[in-house]
């Protein structure tokens, strides 16, 4: 069929941050599909320069409200690596808990509030019918579960206050630990209903790609080496050697290739390369669903997130049994140095490199966000999808494209900050 049309979706809802999409179809072929970061750039990389290193974690936390803990933790790790600070076992446990809580809350937000309306064919959670209404309240309960963990260990779910370079300034309150454990046990079974709905929906879009994730042996989103679908193992500090930044002229964000190819980071990548490290209880209860990984179906990113939600609950229940005690602040010796931090943010690999002067100021800081890494593949998928749907009404094309973008779970708030400027 030969037709020309333009499809514009402005300020898409039910994704993190502002984005719009422009698709151009000419002579029956998709000429371009542009996913535009509409979020206004706030120049965090530039703002870091010259600031004392100790202020950076709190500063970069403000890059993204929803995954603030990931930015804070990743920058903290980069500084600790640079200054040879070894966090204690307890600090690592607290850090893992803060991260598990963040991922649980973030996935709950995405799946219940952004994805379920697509599956139920409703504009938003507010229009759910009587039978579906339970999921609105489940969504709030699961979000609260993640929030409770993070609040308990880090003081706040957004812009945490207890997490410091090398230590945590407060030890979790014993009675609150108990309360949190009880709450987690109570909401755990709700996740199965969610998994069931996602499992039974017929969304599918398969295309093979390279999947890259930090293969944390305890699946706590913080440690280990990076692994890709070819089985190649890459040390955190070497990750950026394999990346190429692609400038996207129409957007306030950028894109990346890995080893010269498009690739995917996020929950689907984590399960594709590291499902064996999930919590034993999660594996036992979700065997049937875990069999689909490795998968090349982008909609399995939703399933992967739901599985990770259960894992976050199970793993947190273990870590909350830790005997927490007050610990001393580690001593910090300032020196001229560089450090790299890599963590799994809810949406995939997050990379920080910080360079510190001998006076303890940031010489330069650079970071790579998950959404920027998925940008190129996302646009290529959109193109392909629209090509397949060309004879469908425009409304349906729009709906399908939005659905696909939501499965990617992009975060435009993160994506907007890092348009690289050449410093001579």
């Amino acid at each position: 069929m030969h037709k020309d049309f333009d499809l514009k979706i402005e300020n898409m809802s039910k994704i993190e941050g502002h984005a719009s999409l422009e698709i151009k179809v000419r002579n029956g072929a998709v000429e371009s599909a542009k996913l535009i970061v509409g979020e206004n750039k706030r120049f965090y990389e530039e703002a870091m320069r010259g600031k004392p290193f100790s202020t950076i974690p709190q500063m970069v936390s403000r890059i993204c409200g929803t995954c603030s803990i990931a930015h804070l933790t990743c920058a903290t790790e980069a500084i600790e690596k640079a200054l040879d600070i070894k966090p204690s076992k307890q600090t690592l446990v607290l850090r893992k808990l803060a991260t598990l809580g963040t991922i649980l809350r973030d996935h709950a937000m995405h799946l219940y509030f952004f994805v379920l309306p697509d599956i139920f064919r409703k504009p938003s959670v507010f229009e759910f019918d009587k039978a579906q209404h339970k999921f609105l309240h489940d969504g709030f309960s699961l979000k609260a579960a993640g929030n409770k963990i993070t609040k308990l260990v880090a003081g706040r779910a957004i812009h945490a206050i207890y997490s410091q370079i090398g230590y945590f300034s407060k030890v979790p309150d014993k009675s609150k630990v108990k309360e949190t454990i009880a709450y987690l046990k109570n909401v755990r079974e709700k996740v199965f209903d969610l998994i069931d709905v996602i499992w039974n929906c017929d969304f599918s879009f398969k295309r093979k790609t390279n999947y890259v994730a930090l293969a944390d042996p305890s699946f706590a989103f913080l440690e280990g080496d990076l692994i890709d679908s070819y089985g190649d193992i890459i040390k955190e500090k070497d990750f950026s050697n394999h990346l190429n930044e692609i400038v996207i002229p129409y957007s306030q964000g950028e894109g990346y290739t890995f080893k010269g190819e498009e690739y995917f980071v996020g929950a689907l990548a984590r399960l594709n390369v590291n499902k064996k490290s999930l919590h034993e209880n999660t594996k036992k209860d979700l065997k049937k669903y875990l069999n689909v990984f490795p998968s090349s179906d982008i909609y399995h990113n939703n399933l992967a997130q739901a599985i990770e939600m259960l894992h976050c609950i199970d793993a947190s229940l273990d870590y909350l049994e830790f005997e927490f005690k007050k610990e001393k602040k580690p001593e910090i010796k300032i020196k001229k140095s560089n450090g790299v931090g890599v963590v799994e943010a809810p949406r995939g690999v997050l990379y920080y490199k910080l360079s510190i002067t001998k006076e303890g100021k940031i010489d330069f800081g650079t970071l790579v966000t998950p959404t920027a890494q998925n940008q190129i593949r996302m646009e290529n998928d959109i193109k392909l999808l629209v090509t397949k749907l060309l004879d469908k009404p425009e409304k349906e094309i729009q709906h399908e494209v939005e659905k696909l973008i939501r499965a990617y779970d992009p975060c435009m708030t993160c994506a907007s900050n890092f348009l690289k400027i050449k410093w001579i």
Partner: protein
Amino acid sequence: MKKLSIGIFSFTCDEGCSMQILEVFNNKFKEWENLIEIKHFRLISPRKDIEKLDVAFVEGAISTKRDLEGLKKVRETSKKVIAIGSCAINGFPSNQRNFFDKKVKQKIKPFLKKFNHLENVEPIKKFISVDGEINGCPISEDDFIKVLEDCLIEFGVKDA
């Protein structure tokens, strides 16, 4: 029964304050479900209704012409505008580019021009009158609950 019609609007920021409102909903939504109508909250609904809002909660600073147009519209159509969070109230931390030195400002200039940014990033009160503020980065859950409860009473949705 009359409901309080509210909108939540995000300008230049990390959306941490609106996320915090969603955290408040974890515990309060059941109670408020029949008292409030959310007419605009891009994060969770495609509904873009901004006509006749009782209360608009605005997060973020104003960095672009588009931000500014949007903000003015919100003011025109809302009875009450409440600035939420430090970005909306005093610009910080979303206004860091205001403090860059000359050299850096020169570097980012072409980018700012291309995407229609204003000379400086400003708090919302620079452009519109604001009826209330909830400070913090992010706002505290308790402060938001108090302000919303007060609005429910002020607009006659709930008895004092």
